[in-house]
């Protein structure tokens, strides 16, 4: 005689699909759902080439989360390239979280939904260029550094950072409400004309 299985917490009953398989959802022992559904998944391009020797710590690309969701950065795909005059130097970009204020200047970036049925992104502001104006912005220390030597011109390097793993949402780089992510010229040196960054940042929201 078949029996149904009822939740111990409510009156909900287990569904067995027509395939004969029971439905189950993965949780960890802290009660967190692994692979929780997202409200959307998005991309934004990175596309900037220095036309001036922008100072160390110049901020070139930023995104700032809105107030209602968490942004889970899955991928940073940052190609750096150099077409300028060679020099015995290694240029570096840094990735940093920021809070408190929204950068201004540069040009707005259009956020692309990975599925057009998703709602608009919760990201409140995203821009690149400049350098951007960062009045009252509070930056954390560098989370990552991406370097490339420029002792010969025409260099390029791909930095493909995959933060996400299935069943490990905690592995993403998270932006809580009103937090932001910035790509900046590292403190170690100024930019050189002809240095550029290209690629994209990919994230979920929930």
């Amino acid at each position: 005689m078949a029996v149904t299985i009822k939740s111990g917490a409510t009156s909900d009953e287990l569904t067995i699909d027509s395939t004969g398989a029971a439905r189950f959802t993965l949780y960890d022992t802290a009660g967190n759902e692994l692979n929780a559904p997202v409200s959307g998944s998005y991309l934004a391009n990175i596309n900037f080439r220095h036309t001036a020797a922008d100072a160390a710590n110049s901020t070139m690309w930023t995104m700032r989360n809105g107030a209602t969701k968490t942004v889970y950065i899955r991928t940073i795909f940052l190609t750096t390239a150099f077409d300028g005059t060679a020099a015995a130097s290694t240029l570096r970009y840094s990735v940093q979280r920021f809070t408190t204020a929204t950068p201004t200047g540069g040009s707005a970036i259009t956020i692309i939904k990975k599925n057009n049925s998703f709602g608009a992104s919760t990201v409140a502001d995203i821009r690149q260029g400049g350098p951007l104006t960062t009045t009252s912005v509070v930056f954390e220390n560098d989370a990552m550094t991406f370097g490339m030597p420029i002792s010969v011109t025409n260099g390029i390097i791909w930095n493909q950072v995959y933060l996400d793993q299935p069943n490990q949402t905690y592995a993403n780089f998270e932006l809580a409400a009103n937090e932001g992510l910035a790509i900046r010229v590292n403190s170690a040196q100024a930019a050189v004309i002809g240095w550029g960054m290209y690629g994209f940042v990919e994230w979920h929201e929930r």
Partner: protein
Amino acid sequence: MAGVTVQSGATSDLLTIDATSKAFRGTLYDTAGIEINVTPSGGAYTAPINLRHTAATAAGSKVWAMRNGNTKTMRIRTFFFTLGFDGTAIPATNLGYSIQRYGTGGSANANNSLTDRNRSAIKKRSSYSASTLAGGVFDYKDDATTGLTWTSNPTFETDAIVLRFPCSVTNTVVPFNAYFLQTNESFSCFELAINEGITILVNPVAAIIGQSLTGFIEWDEV
């Protein structure tokens, strides 16, 4: 017949069926009883690597180090490195680094030439507690012929990872990305037990001005 509830054999806890999905909640364990994909009780962190030698740092010098504290295990998920060289080419020469774990007994001195802002671990979620890193910081040094100094010499393991690149032509750049952690395989991380550390040392020859190692290390704390 009304549905039956399923009760744990170990406690009085009852199985939950979620309202929308009508799916039961399950957690993956291995046959040894260890939870797979455990969410870190501590948190998840990164530390940047930002070395460019401005001096001929001697072979064997430790130039970057971090040591675990005494309460959690550090599970290193990723070494994301870019090796580079912008100096004067030297024929028939390989430059490089090695990565070694070290045991208890000592730690690197805070002894670097750059400002402190580059020395703290970064939380991947800002609500996490501070990293369990000893002192909350990593140490690095790329501006002298000697590397980090040590309060007392710990026992260094042999090379776990070897990074090499030629410098017979300038402007070498080499990516080195090691993703240790795989889905459902927490055991595949490179682990630092309590008080263990990890160091990057110049190897096999002295560094040359213009030699660089940039990137980051990523880990969970459980």
